């Protein structure tokens, strides 16, 4: 398993953002669904080794990120797209992707080809030499995806990757996700259930810091018959599971 999480918590002062999460994931595309404030981004940041967990056990790519050496090895094999990705406005697309390829400790000789391949995969070849300040929001998001995949990661963590992408780009992006998921573990945090239905092999639904559902998109869809609301079958499953989780929490 590339991700093994046991009873993981993360606190910010008195606020518990992640409350006792258990999760395992191997190769494939794993969707992380949930309403705003559910703890998805915090969990993703913990998995990206940006935030240490407050308690619990975390193993990534069969390593414990608590130690310097294993953490560095994990980071070499990791791709991460944060929700709010900052940009250096004076960098070109290639310079930005190259910068993070170098920070990922890729061998310098392999970097130019890896950068070119990543930029091509997100369909930004025509903008390769353009300054980031001249790009649209959707293009900047694709630059962020390019830096995440430049090292051909074994573990790819994407936080709201389709935000700002137009419908055609989203369709292309889902195809890219399916392709990447054949070799790597791809975790996609989103609140767009259609992205999950189209690209993910497994899905977890979070609410108030806890995982309240873990299964396949088909299993989540099936839960929609238990009183969910929404236009699409998967949306009905999503709302039904959330409603049941909140009811159970209120009763307890």
């Amino acid at each position: 398993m590339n991700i093994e999480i046991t009873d993981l918590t993360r606190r910010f002062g008195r606020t518990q953002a992640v409350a006792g999460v258990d999760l395992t994931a191997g190769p494939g595309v794993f969707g992380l669904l949930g309403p705003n404030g559910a703890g998805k981004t915090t969990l993703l940041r913990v998995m990206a080794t940006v935030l240490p967990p407050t308690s619990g056990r975390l193993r990534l790519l069969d390593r414990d990120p608590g130690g310097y050496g294993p953490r560095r090895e994990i980071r070499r094999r990791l791709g991460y797209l944060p929700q709010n990705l900052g940009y250096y406005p004076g960098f070109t697309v290639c310079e930005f992707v190259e910068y993070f390829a170098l920070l990922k400790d890729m061998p310098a000789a392999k970097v130019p080809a890896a950068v070119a391949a990543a930029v091509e995969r997100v369909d930004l070849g025509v903008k390769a030499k353009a300054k980031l300040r001249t790009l649209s929001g959707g293009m900047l998001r694709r630059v962020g995806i390019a830096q995440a995949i430049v090292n051909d990661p074994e573990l790819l963590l994407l936080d709201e990757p389709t935000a700002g992408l137009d419908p055609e780009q989203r369709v292309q992006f889902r195809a890219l996700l399916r392709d990447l998921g054949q070799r790597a573990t791809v975790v996609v945090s989103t609140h767009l259930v259609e992205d999950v239905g189209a690209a993910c092999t497994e899905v977890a639904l979070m609410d108030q810091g806890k995982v309240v559902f873990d299964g396949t998109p088909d299993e989540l869809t099936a839960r929609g018959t238990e009183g969910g609301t929404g236009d699409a079958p998967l949306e009905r499953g999503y709302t039904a599971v959330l409603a049941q989780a909140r009811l159970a929490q209120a009763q307890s």
Partner: protein
Amino acid sequence: MNDPSATGRSDEGRPGAGRPDAGLAGVDLDRVWIGVAAQVWRREPGWLERLAGRLLRSPGLARALLTTPSLLVPWLIASIAVLAAGAAATLSSGQPVAPLLAPAVAAAGIAYAYGPGVDPAWELAGSMAVSDRMVLLVRALSVFAMDSALGIAACAASGAALGITFGWLVPMTAVSALALAAATVARSANVGVAAGLAGWAITILGGQAATGKFTVAVQAPVLVLPYLAVAAACLAAVLYASRVSKGNR
């Protein structure tokens, strides 16, 4: 995203577009194109980046060093302008203004070397194999070295006495360490600058209140040990605050 078979995207205009695959059996044109693009798009690092890469034994660290906000040209111009004004004030008034300004300039530069709100891609950099602690260290040392050189040049230009010319280097170390510690603990460059400047102002004014001379902060040998102790304590705070462990901040 670039998966034409899945998306129907047109490759028109790209090398290999409309390719007669039958006549190029066995040739992976996508791979060829990536090789061409890699050559066309590759960036040749400048001499400074190559030198830094060799010294630091890490091209990534060298690139991170050259993107330090407080080593970029506009910041350097501002630092030079402040110290030049200090040198001019020293020459015209006879008071050692430049040695008193140098620690403040360094404190601001170091607080703005790295961190959230300062470095656009700070969060992303925190997930990289090149440790962000190492980036912080390299950037802070480089900014300190650069500001020391600028300060020495300003003091030399203003004709300050030799003791004063180098006397501010120790307080500069303490003030810079204080700014770095405050910025790291509070995760805010502004807090770091405020702490550094406030600490330095209190030291100068305290010295003046005690002795009647505000230059005592850079001239009194008795202050060297306290300065070094403050610097050591602040650097320990930086190491503690930037460690990776179980956290709830």
